């Protein structure tokens, strides 16, 4: 098959036609840059922290954020922020790729270890926190990662956190929230995360919002990013993995399924956010233990800390 635009060989079949390497790379970059502009994800005065793991999504979004700033003659401060949960035989490998990448593109990297902040790795913590339940490690990991990304992005001076969430991640989160009737959580999704503004919250934004995971992997491959495939040992245990399989099966049978989920969700997102603002009168307050933003008296990270201390 040849490219829809030129005689070169196709590397991907999209709904609107085949694309060769060069036309795919342009198409992908244009889509990411359009998302940044349409949703005002990067402001002229923003100091930018890109949340990174060393995987394809975070390296791609880091590379394209840097490229976007350069192409638009923007001089925003940019750094990569990684959270090391201490998952054995996993995180150290992805952080190696991150170091190589950031050295090549001269991007400063900051790494925060859960062991240093909370006194425990995820491997040590979750069997204690989830004892007697069927919960997977992902609940502890999620709370820790969100907490540390926000706290350290802010402490390092960032006014925006850019994440590598792609279209598949978002479609999975939307369906998970529907299946579990978590309408309130769904209101926090979208190209810009969250519902409320608070001086202690650094807004999180998603430039890869409209990029399917397969396109992100292909972009990273064609750009020659060095990424070794290492799977989080807990990844297949979670509810998300089953939703991922379900959506991939549907996408294969009915092309455009994931994009359809995103489009219909974006139509109702303003209503969800408005409803959340009206119903959730509880103000964000500062955690009485650590001073970080919390929806109750004590934040989730400090609740986990208390369980680990017993």
């Amino acid at each position: 098959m040849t490219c829809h635009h030129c005689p070169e060989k196709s590397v991907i079949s999209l709904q609107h036609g085949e694309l060769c390497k060069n036309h795919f790379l342009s198409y992908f970059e244009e889509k990411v840059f359009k998302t940044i502009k349409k949703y005002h994800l990067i402001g002229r005065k923003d100091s930018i922290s890109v949340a990174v793991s060393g995987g394809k999504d975070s390296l791609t979004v880091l590379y394209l954020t840097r490229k976007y700033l350069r192409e638009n003659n923007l001089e925003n401060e940019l750094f990569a922020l990684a959270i090391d949960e201490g998952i054995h035989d996993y995180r150290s490998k992805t952080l190696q790729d991150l170091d190589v990448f950031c050295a090549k593109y001269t991007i400063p990297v900051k790494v925060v270890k859960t062991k240093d902040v909370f006194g425990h790795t995820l491997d040590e913590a979750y069997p204690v926190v989830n004892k007697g339940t069927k919960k997977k490690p992902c609940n502890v990991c999620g709370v820790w990662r969100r907490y540390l990304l926000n706290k350290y992005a802010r402490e390092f001076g960032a006014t925006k956190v850019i994440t590598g969430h792609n279209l598949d991640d978002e479609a999975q989160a939307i369906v998970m929230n529907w299946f579990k009737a978590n309408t309130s959580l769904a209101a926090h999704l979208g190209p810009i995360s969250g519902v409320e503004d608070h001086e202690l919250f650094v807004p999180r934004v998603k430039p890869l919002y409209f990029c399917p995971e397969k396109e992100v992997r292909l972009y990273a491959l064609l750009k020659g990013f060095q990424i070794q495939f290492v799977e989080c040992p807990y990844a297949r245990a979670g509810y998300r993995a089953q939703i991922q399989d379900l959506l991939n099966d549907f996408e294969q049978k009915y092309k455009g399924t994931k994009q359809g989920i995103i489009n219909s969700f974006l139509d109702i997102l303003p209503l969800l956010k408005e409803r959340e603002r009206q119903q959730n009168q509880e103000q964000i307050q500062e955690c009485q233990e650590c001073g970080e933003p919390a929806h109750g008296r004590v934040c989730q990270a400090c609740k986990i800390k208390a369980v680990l201390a017993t």
Partner: protein
Amino acid sequence: MELEIFIERENRREKVNFSGRTIGELLKELKINPETVITVRNKEVLTEQEALQDQDKIELLSVISGG
């Protein structure tokens, strides 16, 4: 035809006898959803319609994140 296949997600390399013609047919036979892999031959990315040849060395790179 005989193919040598590397499945990245399982870090597994194996030889398979394949009676079909294209990448799409191969993935169907291996019960791998094309949404989840990128197929590479000699550093060249292949689409599902691409025809295979005897003794091809095929890499199936995982699309799904490591976690």
